[in-house]
């Protein structure tokens, strides 16, 4: 449609949007650099009871290797609204990753939002938790708990995975003692990998990647699965506690 003057927004489960349609996205959207917006839903482990066949854990990885593609993964309702509008204003293909799990509202209308500019929450220097998508809220919970223990961390909401905010990543590595990445996605090829790519080139340091560790998902309630795969605020605290 785009070829004839409209901006198509396509939406379906992430497992189909990125997985089944990969060849179409590659050859008929990204290669001709068409202005198509793919808004995938039900991404990640938090799709829950449907189980592994429907839990897309590799989409960020696949989508970000495609030339011309912008990749986004938003963390709350407010940010989703901003992103859906913002992507209409940039030219070229976009993959916007959305999830099924109900998440708390993180942002109010005063928050600045710009594609490619990560949002920093807090000024802590003990650690940076660089997170994306529906589990940014777990990082924020961990931050608040850790504060009570006298550990001051910052959360970086990396809503744009490509182009990634290199400046923010390097700044955090310089200013904080530890870097943790957190994603509802495989640790291979996703946010964790993207952060490591930047740091290995610009400011080599140790990074702890939290995410799905090279395995398929399983059925269960979203909250239970986050516990099972060790992606909750408590798991973040455990890591920072033991390594701190």
């Amino acid at each position, binding site marked *: 449609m785009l070829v004839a003057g409209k901006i198509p927004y396509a939406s379906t489960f992430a497992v189909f949007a990125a997985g089944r349609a990969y060849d179409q996205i590659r050859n008929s959207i990204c*290669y*001709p*650099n068409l202005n198509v917006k793919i808004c995938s839903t039900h991404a990640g482990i938090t799709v829950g009871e449907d189980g592994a066949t429907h839990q897309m854990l590799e989409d960020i990885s696949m989508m970000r290797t495609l030339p011309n593609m912008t990749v986004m993964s938003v963390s709350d309702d407010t940010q989703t609204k901003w992103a859906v509008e913002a992507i209409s204003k940039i030219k070229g293909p976009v993959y916007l990753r959305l999830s099924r799990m109900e998440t708390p509202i993180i942002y109010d209308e005063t928050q600045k939002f710009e594609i490619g500019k990560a949002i920093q929450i807090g000024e802590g220097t003990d650690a940076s938790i660089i997170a994306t998508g529906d589990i940014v809220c777990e990082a924020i919970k961990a931050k608040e708990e850790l504060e009570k223990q006298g550990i001051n961390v910052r959360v970086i909401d990396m809503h744009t995975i490509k182009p990634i905010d290199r400046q923010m990543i390097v700044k955090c590595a310089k200013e904080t003692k530890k870097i943790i990445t957190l994603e509802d996605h495989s640790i291979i090829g996703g946010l964790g990998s993207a952060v490591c790519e930047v740091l290995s080139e610009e400011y080599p340091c140790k990074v702890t990647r939290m995410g799905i560790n090279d395995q398929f998902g399983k059925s269960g309630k979203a909250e239970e699965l986050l516990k099972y795969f060790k992606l909750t605020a408590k798991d973040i605290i455990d890591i920072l506690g033991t390594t701190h």
Partner: protein
Amino acid sequence: MKITDVKELEKISNEIRKNIVEQVYTAKSGHPGGSLSSADILTVLYFNQMNIDEKNPSSPLRDRFVLSKGHCSPALYAVLAERGYFEKEKLKEFRSTKGSLQGHPDMNKVPGVDMTTGSLGQGLSASNGMALTSKLNHDGFRVYCLLGDGEIEEGQVWEAAMTSYKYKLDNLCVIVDNNNLQIDGNVESVKGLDNIEGKFKAFGFNTISIDGNNIEQIINAFETAKLIKGKPTAIIAKTIKGKGVSFMENDAGWHGKAPSEEEYNKAIKELEK
């Protein structure tokens, strides 16, 4: 520029065949068989049917053509050059690093190419989008999509066919280049593909069966398709793979192979008769 004289169109078509052979020979690779089978269809589209202007290749109201069987790019490049979208000299750069004529058509590199294709089965979906937009905007342009018969073994084609029907895309005309051969052989032996017309009919298309190497029949089919309202048309064009070069005709071996010097000379000699 609308040419109505059949003899003149046949001459152009023959010129296109020569340029197909020339490109594949020069590049030492490419797909001559299906390019030659579709040469007459492309000639009619670009010299008789489509509302296009080679001097304004991105005009929003132009008719669109999607070469879903993108490997037959030599035919598309030849017809675009013949029509004047770019210099014929450029055809020598086919499949080379120095030129813009990629192995499969790239809409951002070649003026006149309406859609990037190459991964089979996707062109009808793109055509649907164009045809639907034409309708939504009341633009009135028509969309033509050329599918290979081997290509329609791809499932996406039939998903797209349902969409064409659902949106009553009577400004969409599908042409199946039914040369009966794909890379691995006969379409019937590869995938049991038969009764293509019945299949499209079952999916709600108006269908027309013709000899796809007969200029007059091709023109008539397109004219009939224009009169059909409320549903898309599929023209099943029975063609000969490798048409025009005796030793390439009806031989799946010439699906994606370049001729040797000797074969090239023989082919050109035949086409110059």
